[in-house]
């Protein structure tokens, strides 16, 4: 078996416009339901449920005709965005079955179940479990498992429910299906029945060259994809990763101490595998799957790739308070991202002596970042800008050091006020540094002053009006009689006749 077996399951559009997942048609005698979409001024049915289909309604029918045929039809507006969102939620839920889940249009999901079906005791049991759970929530679905996404797509929609193709045995199962099962483009799909080609098997019997000439290369490609002769790339909602582990419990758990214990257990599982492969990860996402289908994720990040189970568990445990176990948690999954090669380091004899500086700092940075948040721990690095408030850029503390540095000839204060504060100034001449200024109600006589250092706005960042001469700042470094040093500036220039320049205090040297 070369191609991975693909599970595919299909769900109809949401049954109720509110998205609440109300009871579907199969549960009791509820009125037939259809979703209606406006299409160029005509309202047409966009989806029908089983009851409506049994009464002869079909997708694409005019809403008025349908209402005439079935007077008690319940119609609701078609909401593709809402459908998509609901499908994404379902997609995230399916992660409990396999880490690789892809959305397919508005009504389907692909699950890559290679290597995970044994956890359920086989592909058939897995498919039954998945569909039974969906049915319990009133989301009727069909499913099939096959070697290729194309075959699974076809079997789920046109073959008997829960068909499982044996490895390499797609062709006989596909042969009796209608050609629509091949996901052909509209033109080809309309043309084929006119030529008397109704079933996939008929296409399989035709010479390939003729097929390609008449119906385009895409038809041949679709056929090959279904049979496994051509590859098909799926866009998984999460990147497919082998760094995934899962723990299921016989009895649902809910006590915080239990959650902490399983956190430690699952971290140990995944980290042992990472260690065996010589890798480390920077992000870990722990998801608690509740009995009612909700997933409660908890994430932790590391500043450097790591695989120390105790350390990862320690970062995750404080966040378990936010997990609401509801009626209980039955499955826990752990997913490692940003996995990088990480050679195991030999602990040096002088490990305590600061030889492994970063090794020691990384746990501290991780603790702080996970506790306070990423934006609260940083290293200030130089940025190429003369504007003081933009000359500093914040980086993660253990990022590689930048090469540039601040200009040592431009003295800068140790405290920079986030917003400059207005000061009142007495100056002898318009362009001179002030003789006296008042800041926060305290008048200070300037003993020494240095400057000006003229800093203009960065004209390439703003509109022209905002960077004119009125926005130029002249900075002075002044010292008052007690020796306190201030960084003050005058915004604008005297003599342009329009505005009177104002003085501001921007920083303190200390």
């Amino acid at each position, binding site marked *: 078996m070369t191609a991975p077996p693909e599970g595919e399951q299909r769900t109809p559009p949401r049954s109720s416009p509110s998205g609440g997942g109300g009871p579907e048609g199969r549960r009791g005698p509820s009125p037939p339901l259809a979703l209606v979409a406006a299409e160029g001024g005509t309202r047409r049915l966009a989806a029908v449920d089983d009851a409506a289909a049994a009464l002869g309604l079909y997708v694409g029918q005019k809403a008025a005709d349908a209402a005439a045929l079935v007077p008690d039809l319940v119609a609701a507006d078609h909401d593709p965005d809402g459908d998509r969102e609901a499908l994404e939620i379902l997609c995230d839920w399916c992660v409990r079955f396999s880490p690789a889940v892809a959305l397919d249009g508005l009504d389907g999901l692909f699950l890559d179940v290679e290597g995970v079906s044994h956890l359920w005791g086989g592909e058939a049991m897995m498919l039954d479990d998945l569909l039974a759970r969906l049915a319990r929530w009133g989301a009727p679905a069909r499913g099939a498992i096959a070697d290729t996404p194309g075959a699974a797509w076809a079997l789920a929609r046109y073959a008997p429910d829960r068909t499982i193709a044996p490895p390499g045995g797609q062709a006989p199962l596909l042969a009796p299906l209608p050609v629509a099962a091949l996901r052909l483009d509209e033109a080809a799909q309309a043309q084929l029945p006119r030529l008397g080609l109704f079933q996939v098997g008929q296409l399989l019997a035709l010479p390939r060259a003729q097929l390609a000439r008449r119906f385009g290369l895409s038809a041949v490609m679709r056929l090959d994809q279904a049979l496994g002769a051509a590859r098909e790339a799926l866009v998984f909602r999460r990147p497919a990763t082998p760094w995934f582990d899962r723990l299921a419990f016989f009895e649902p758990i809910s006590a915080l101490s239990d959650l902490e214990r399983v956190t430690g257990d699952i971290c140990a599982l995944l980290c042992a595998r990472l260690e065996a492969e010589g890798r480390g990860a920077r992000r870990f996402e722990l998801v608690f799957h509740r009995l009612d289908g909700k997933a409660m994720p908890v994430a932790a990040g590391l500043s450097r790739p790591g695989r120390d189970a105790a350390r990862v568990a320690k970062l995750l445990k404080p966040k378990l308070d936010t997990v609401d176990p509801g009626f209980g948690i039955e499955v826990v999954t752990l997913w490692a991202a940003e996995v990088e090669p990480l050679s195991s380091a030999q602990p040096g004899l002088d490990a305590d002596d600061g030889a492994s500086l970063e090794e020691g*700092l990384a746990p501290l940075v991780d603790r702080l970042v996970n506790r306070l948040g990423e934006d609260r721990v940083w290293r200030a690095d130089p940025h190429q800008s003369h504007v003081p408030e933009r000359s500093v850029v914040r980086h993660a503390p253990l990022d590689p050091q930048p090469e540039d540095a601040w200009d040592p000839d431009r003295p800068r204060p*140790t405290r920079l006020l986030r917003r400059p504060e207005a000061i009142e100034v007495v100056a002898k001449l318009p362009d001179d540094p002030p003789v006296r200024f008042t800041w926060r109600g305290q008048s200070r006589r300037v003993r020494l002053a240095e400057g000006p250092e003229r800093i203009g706005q960065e004209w390439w960042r703003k509109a022209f009006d905002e960077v004119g001469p009125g926005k130029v700042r002249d900075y002075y470094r002044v010292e008052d009689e007690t020796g306190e040093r201030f960084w003050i500036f005058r915004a604008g220039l005297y003599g342009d006749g329009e505005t009177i320049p104002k003085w501001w205090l921007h920083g303190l040297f*200390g």
Partner: protein
Amino acid sequence: MPGAKPALSALRARIAALEAGTRTPPPVLPFGDPRIDGCFPAGGLPRGGWHEVGGAGLEEETGAAPAAFSALMLRPLAARGAVVWVMRRADLHAPGLAGLSFPTGRLIQVRARDEAEVLSVLEDALATVGVAAAIGEAQSPDLKAGRRLQLACERRGATGILLRRRPYGGPAGPRGDQGREVSGAAAQTRWRIAAAPSQPPPGDPGLGPPRWRVELQRCRGGRPGAWILEQAEAADGPHPFRLVSQLADHDVGEAAAPSVTFGDSSPRGGAANAA
């Protein structure tokens, strides 16, 4: 007992001879001037402990002079590891520290949400491998927090500085002055930093190197002192400060410079002398 003394000193000499090869001197951070280092019991600022640095007047809110002084004092330590600076108000400007030749690449800044978080992050940082020093800006740790900081410092020999600051101004908290008197008990030293008028080189119209009026108000096992210190130029050697003048005595120095007023120095001065 005059007879016991020679015996005792002989015993001490023997112990000293035994320990001479093995004993490592207690780690200190010397200032490079005997007039300052003499105040400390081991000839320099003790490294495995925490120190309290405060300002006066408006500095209690802005904390600019204490920050510049602390950064300069810890500069030699930054060569040994990272320096963590924990604050509530993120107005520390790294280019300014770089202007004091402080290696900002080694500086990790942390913005905490409240006072308790400042202290717990500071404690966490001090107990971590690879952190040479940590600075926390807080108002008034109580005795228990002070003890915890001391224990964290002792674990790895890191140096802590508690920068006394009320970052958003306003009146002192309900614990106010009572809390600050207590906090001093756990600190190794207590400093008060204020700016001092600088002396530009002759013929230079600008500002001279920055100067601080530095008061060592309390020093465990040592004695207080007061000096005017100036940021040392590169030619002056590896130490970050240059002693400009020694203020005669703690109290006399205060009287001699009435222009620098300290709001609540009189009870503190008494306590410092008692200690």
